[in-house]
């Protein structure tokens, strides 16, 4: 753990030189410094859950809440400090909740349900007792309701931005700061931001890399989850490509349309886990929102 922090410190010294924070014109993704910006949107939508017996999450309410000071900021659950924010370059460090847990927690019926996917196929008794590295046969699926709890993790990360006109390239790297999964996560994304007085459009393709420790903590199966060795499986690291669209259009001074679509493909080692039955997470929302 100390090694990871040392890497971050060196990283800051290298790139995190102080510089004044510059302003932001309205053609960009701006917020009033020193004031809370709270947005609430009501609508219809869905976030799929790739886990076996994992309930899809209905997106009926979308909250957008942010506060930016001269250096510190809060942005939708992320607390950070901006080392630099200039016209073309930005660096910040932050603490953020690892959202991996949401597939296990939200709308999760817990231990009240009966054992779900008890394998009925003969493969349960096959001689290939789970070595942990080879994926279980595809018909071996284990309900998320039957495995041990996964904990929330808090990640510490640093993000770099390069801005050029309406384009932005960002790279972030996060490590577990809460001793939960001891893993890391990196995100390389490109963003195109297009806005006028009445509407804004954001297109954001990205690649997320998840380390083996992170992926295995949440999606790996071991003796804590089930004593049945056929289910035991270790998830390796992998890259998950994704893309998201955001379009908002002003209805009047207070209200505007909010439409949001996001898609992420899960890496193959994760999809082969007995608790994962879908190879992607899709997130859709369409509604009306207002800012307070």
């Amino acid at each position, binding site marked *: 753990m100390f090694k990871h922090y040392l890497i971050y410190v060196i990283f800051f010294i290298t790139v995190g030189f102080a510089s004044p924070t510059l302003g932001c014109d*309205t053609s960009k993704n701006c917020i*009033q410094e020193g004031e809370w910006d709270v947005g609430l949107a009501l609508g219809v939508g869905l976030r799929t859950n790739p886990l076996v017996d994992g309930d899809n999450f209905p997106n009926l309410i979308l909250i957008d809440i942010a506060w930016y000071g001269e250096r510190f900021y809060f942005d939708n659950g992320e607390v950070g400090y901006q080392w630099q924010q200039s016209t073309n370059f930005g660096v910040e460090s932050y603490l953020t909740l690892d959202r991996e847990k949401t597939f296990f927690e939200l709308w999760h019926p817990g231990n009240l349900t009966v054992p779900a996917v008890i394998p009925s196929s003969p493969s349960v008794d096959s001689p290939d007792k789970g070595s942990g590295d080879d994926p279980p046969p595809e018909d071996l699926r284990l309900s998320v309701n039957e495995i041990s709890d996964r904990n929330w993790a808090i990640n510490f990360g640093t993000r770099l931005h390069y801005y050029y006109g309406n384009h932005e390239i960002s790279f972030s790297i996060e490590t577990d700061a809460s001793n939960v999964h001891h893993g890391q996560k990196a995100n390389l994304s490109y963003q195109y931001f297009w806005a006028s007085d009445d509407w804004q459009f954001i297109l954001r393709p990205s690649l997320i890399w998840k380390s083996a420790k992170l992926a295995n903590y949440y999606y790996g199966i071991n003796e804590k989850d089930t004593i049945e060795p056929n289910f035991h499986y270790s998830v390796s690291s992998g890259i998950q490509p994704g893309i*998201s669209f955001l379009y908002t259009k002003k209805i009047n001074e207070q209200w505007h349309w909010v439409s949001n679509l996001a898609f992420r493909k899960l890496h193959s080692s994760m999809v082969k886990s007995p608790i994962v039955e879908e190879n992607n997470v899709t997130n859709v929302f369409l509604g009306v929102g207002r800012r307070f």
Partner: protein
Amino acid sequence: MKHLESKTILIYFFMLTFMLLAYLPKAWSNSPSWHVQPKVCIVENLGDTCEMVLTMHFKNLAPGAYCYYQGQTPLNCWTDAPPEKTLVIRFIEETTLYLKSQDGSVILSHTMDIKARANKKQVRRVRQPWSLF
């Protein structure tokens, strides 16, 4: 002889000074001037556009053709010389209003400032708004 020349030069100097002092106030009082109001525009936030109606009172402006310029941008022209005129102006940062004659020479100028009520600035968010993931 030398002493006399010095005395003569001194007399001429005092006479010249006296003539200038007698003439300049008259010349100044005859030069065109204007009084422009308001001088400052108050906006909610820095970067907001200010739109306001300016009222100009002219003094000693000779009849002729004149044009208003905001910086290098021509606004409108007129040919009479009324004592009072109005003009709608828009700007987002300090700007200068010029009155130019028909040949383009600057007759009068007036700089207008812009102040923000909130004295706060817009900063760039580092994350996408309404983010789903």
